[in-house]
């Protein structure tokens, strides 16, 4: 029989991975850029939580707002200061710039704060567990699921019902033609980075929530997960990112309970082998996009 605890764990992990992947794919859709600085937005969000708690002694809800705003601002500013000037150059220039932004942010934190991990004081709800029909699970798992459902609903409303969303969908289909409709390139690209930062900020709360600490390389693991999940799910649609996130979460949990204890430290290796084999069979990912490739010009 399917274990309820396993199901809740898988759905909550998948939810977190889906949020992470979504933030990466939104920017890719429009700019055709895999933003390798994305993990750093999450990391800065984590420091936002840390400083609002330790310096400002903010209540938990203000910490959440502060953390998310820090991630959004970092994302938006990186677009403005780093990506915008090289946007018309080449895809490679953008890609290298994203590495530069990543290294810059990691080292800025390393120098300005500390190379060592900082404990992030979180509200007790993050460490409490709850018993649902005999299944014991951390409350934060349920929070992740609820948050992800709300975010997905709000995001699809934004994309489907607003003119900005319409323009963003058009821009990820045909960028130059969208501009010829009078849609400013800067508007849709900035919007994509702001939403990407928002998703990194929200993910940051739950990512940090698991370990209750943050350090300069906190962003590396979530970036890798988001990247692999989007590749598996399909780079060309938000739906692909969400599906990829859940599939990756499922795979992770299945391996966690099926691998013998002596092998568990090789879990990531097993995951990568499975992902590579999958991509050999279906290189376009689970969900094929209807988009045509077009570079920003």
């Amino acid at each position: 029989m399917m274990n309820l605890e396993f199901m809740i764990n898988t759905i909550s992990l998948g939810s977190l991975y889906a949020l992470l992947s979504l933030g990466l794919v939104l920017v890719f859709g429009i700019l055709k850029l895999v933003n390798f600085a994305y993990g750093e937005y999450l990391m800065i969000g984590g420091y936002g939580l840390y400083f609002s708690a330790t310096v400002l002694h903010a209540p938990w809800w203000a910490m959440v707002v502060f953390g998310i705003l820090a991630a959004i601002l970092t994302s938006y500013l990186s677009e403005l200061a780093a990506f915008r000037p090289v946007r018309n150059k080449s895809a490679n220039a953008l890609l290298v710039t994203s590495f530069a932004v990543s290294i810059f942010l990691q080292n800025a934190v390393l120098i300005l704060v500390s190379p060592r991990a900082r404990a992030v004081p979180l509200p007790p709800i993050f460490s409490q567990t709850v018993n649902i029909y005999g299944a014991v699970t951390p409350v934060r798992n349920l929070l992740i699921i609820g948050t992800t459902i709300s975010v997905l609903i709000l995001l699809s409303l934004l994309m489907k019902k607003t003119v900005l969303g319409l323009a963003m969908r058009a821009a990820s289909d045909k960028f130059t033609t969208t501009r010829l409709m009078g849609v400013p390139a800067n508007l849709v690209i900035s919007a994509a980075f702001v939403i990407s930062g928002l998703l990194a900020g929200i993910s940051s709360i739950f990512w940090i929530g698991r370990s209750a600490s943050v350090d300069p390389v906190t962003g590396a693991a979530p970036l890798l997960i988001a990247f692999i999940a989007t590749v598996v799910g399909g780079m060309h649609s938000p739906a692909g990112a969400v599906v990829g996130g859940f599939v990756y979460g499922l795979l992770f949990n299945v391996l966690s309970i099926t691998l013998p204890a002596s092998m568990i430290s090789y879990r990531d290796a097993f995951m990568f082998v499975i992902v590579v084999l999958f991509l050999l069979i279906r290189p376009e990912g689970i969900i094929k996009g209807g988009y045509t490739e077009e570079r920003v010009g």
Partner: protein
Amino acid sequence: MTPMLTVENLSASYGVVRALNDISLEVNEGEMVALLGVNGAGKSTTLKSITGVLRPVKGSIKFLGQEIANGKPEATVKRGLSLVPEGREIFGTLTVEENLRLGAFVSYQRDRYKADLKEMFELFPILEERFTQPGGLLSGGEQQMLAIARALMAHPKLLMLDEPSLGLSPAMTDQIFELIKGLRDRGSTILLVEQNAERALGIVDRAYLLASGEVQYSGTAEEIRRQVDIASVYFGGDDAAPCEVTQ
């Protein structure tokens, strides 16, 4: 009368490949002008320069007396220039309705938008039928109609059409040319880019014949027909050499 659009000594390149060499042309208000030539003659490059998609190397482009060379693509439609792009460039994942809504991005006013949609349905009844379907599911001819309707939603002062007959069946081409003629008769100013010179000369007032990035002939449709063996241009005769490579 000053022309609506004036292009003067325009040159443009893709890297080392010179695509346009000192071309000049004019479009007057209420006129339909054709830009003819084979593949690689510089027709689309001219439109790309006018719409700001490509930065010209030199030269001037004036629209309603205002210099627009080196403008941004998104500024083009606000000035009153709409493009029906080559290959139609329909947003395939967006519905017909959403495609038209984007066409009205800069000019949107609720009441006028409704009236405009009604007008488009009269011009292109098929779009009303397909209103909620994704643009990618439309046939080539239907997509061309959608692309024209999308451009018209912005109430352009000058409508530019890039190879509207490309990839269409002869019957559909007839229908599209009939429609373009209809637009002209309604008073639209049109710059028509076509490879199909014979068909284009049948409906335009004046034409420019481009070859190797230069204006080879210009004049009224009649004059062009008299001066040039249209069939040889269309099939790639002497006047149809590919563009040269410069250092």
